[in-house]
């Protein structure tokens, strides 16, 4: 294999690695936007929160409660952190967001933006803004895999596969199951779904909890790769919003596909014209907005 080909494949893998995080985050945003018509600006902060929950479980919780030997590692965090973040999300929906549905969607956006700033400020106060390495990467996922064209960290490969499975399952549940049909119906005509005897407000709370839980899950997955920092959410969320716009607001398939594809495109740009790697997604966003304002997978109307 020639050098160029190797370089392309290698950057492709790294791009895919970023792409799965874009996909998971924009998927959560799409689920929330589809069901609640709220642009969740707190999504990045909740991703950060997920990473911090993982960090706290491994390094801080034990000392805080006087059990110095207690370190909850990666696998427990992979389950606990999304639940914690999801419950936090449901609390936000129940106590704050719920009262804003009858007003312009801009108020939901402003509220979640405020929550994002509060969370970021809070964590910046207590943790190193430059980032803290996550110490509890599982033993079984250390080391590298030989892919033929490159050696690739085992953990990153796990993160890619795991995220793709999560994205697929989410798509499957929403598009192919009875529960998903109920959600889609609730989006289309909540009144009638209520009249049939379904508790739509509770469904909305759970959906928000699920969407924010996905952000938390992405945060845990990111912790061993990037360092855990109060600003990690703010950095990635701008890109994720561009991904959502390109995929089409509220489109499940659009969010997943655009997330993966744009990660790859970002990687390729590094090969062919590295200076543009950080801006290529925004450039594409502008083009998509001009040609298909509702996004590639959004319903144009």
């Amino acid at each position, binding site marked *: 294999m020639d050098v160029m080909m190797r370089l392309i494949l290698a950057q492709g893998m790294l791009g895919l690695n970023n792409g799965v995080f874009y996909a998971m985050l924009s998927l959560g945003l799409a689920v929330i936007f589809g069901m609640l018509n709220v642009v969740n600006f707190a999504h990045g902060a909740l991703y950060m929160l997920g990473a911090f929950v993982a960090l706290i479980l491994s390094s801080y919780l034990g000392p805080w409660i006087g059990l110095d030997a207690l370190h909850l590692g990666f696998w427990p965090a992979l389950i606990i952190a999304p639940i914690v973040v999801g419950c936090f999300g449901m609390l936000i929906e129940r106590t704050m967001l719920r009262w804003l549905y009858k007003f312009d969607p801009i108020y939901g956006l402003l509220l979640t933006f405020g929550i994002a700033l509060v969370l970021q400020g809070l964590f910046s106060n207590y943790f190193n803004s430059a980032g803290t390495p996550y110490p509890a990467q599982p033993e079984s996922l250390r080391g590298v895999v030989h892919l033929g064209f490159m050696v690739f960290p085992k953990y990153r490969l796990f993160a890619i596969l795991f995220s793709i499975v999560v994205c697929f399952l989410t798509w499957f549940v929403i598009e192919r199951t009875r529960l998903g*049909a109920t959600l889609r119906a609730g989006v289309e005509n909540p009144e*009638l779904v209520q*009249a*049939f005897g*379904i508790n*739509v407000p509770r469904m909305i709370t759970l959906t928000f909890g699920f969407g924010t839980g996905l952000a938390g899950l992405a945060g845990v997955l990111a912790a061993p790769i990037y360092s855990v920092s109060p600003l990690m959410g703010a950095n990635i969320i701008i890109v994720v919003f561009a991904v959502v716009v390109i995929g089409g607001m509220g489109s499940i398939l659009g969010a997943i596909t655009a997330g993966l594809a744009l990660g790859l495109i970002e990687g390729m740009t590094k090969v062919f014209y590295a200076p543009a790697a950080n801006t290529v997604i925004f450039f594409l966003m502008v083009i998509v907005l001009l040609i298909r304002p509702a996004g590639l997978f959004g319903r144009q109307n």
Partner: protein
Amino acid sequence: MAEPAATTTSEAGEALLSVRDLNAYYGESHVLHGIDFDLRKGEVVTLLGRNGAGRTTTLRAMLGLVDRRSGSVKVRGHEIIDLPTHRIAHLGLLGYCPEERGIFASLSVEENLMLPPTLGEGGMSVEEIYRMFPNLEEVRHRTGMRISGGEQQMLAIARILRTGARLLLLDEITEGLAPVIVKTLGRMIGDLKQRGFTIILVEQNFRFASRLADRHYVIEHGKVVDRIDGTDLENSMERLNRYLSV
């Protein structure tokens, strides 16, 4: 009991629904001004009236789909006027078929059919439903918007028969449909009556249900202005036509 309607309730059958002094508002506009009517188990009753009389709003107010309501709605002994919408169908075993049919475009026909949750026992099985509406089985994989108006109407009714609902609220099910289909729907209502369903039909045209209905309530300006027994229909034709003429 002071209300004349309440006396008939004790005559035969078991009072299934009684609506008293039902008032309803959309925002500031006061749409229902004290609706009263009753149904016994197994009866078919129509709510007749001109466009804008308040028939749809009567059904919606029963289900809690208006901005504000007052009065009393008792179904199977439960007062439901203060309950949240999603509990009403369960307590009252209510099945609602809205005027605009409410077929979900993002769902397939089969998903539409399976959407309403089971309320009680004795709902029709999917096989039974497909036997009753063979057309629906043929189009079951299409999305809700890619079927004919008649099929949409059948689907809107079929999906509440699956749930075990015993009291059906059917809003203008014949509106805009070809005479053949209207005839089929008429036969279906007769069939459902035979199976013991209790049915409220909102109609503009009393002819559709004239042979099936036990009673007709005429609604005008958010009030019940007349009540005609099914057996009395022949003698009341002129009166009814006056109410419904435009």
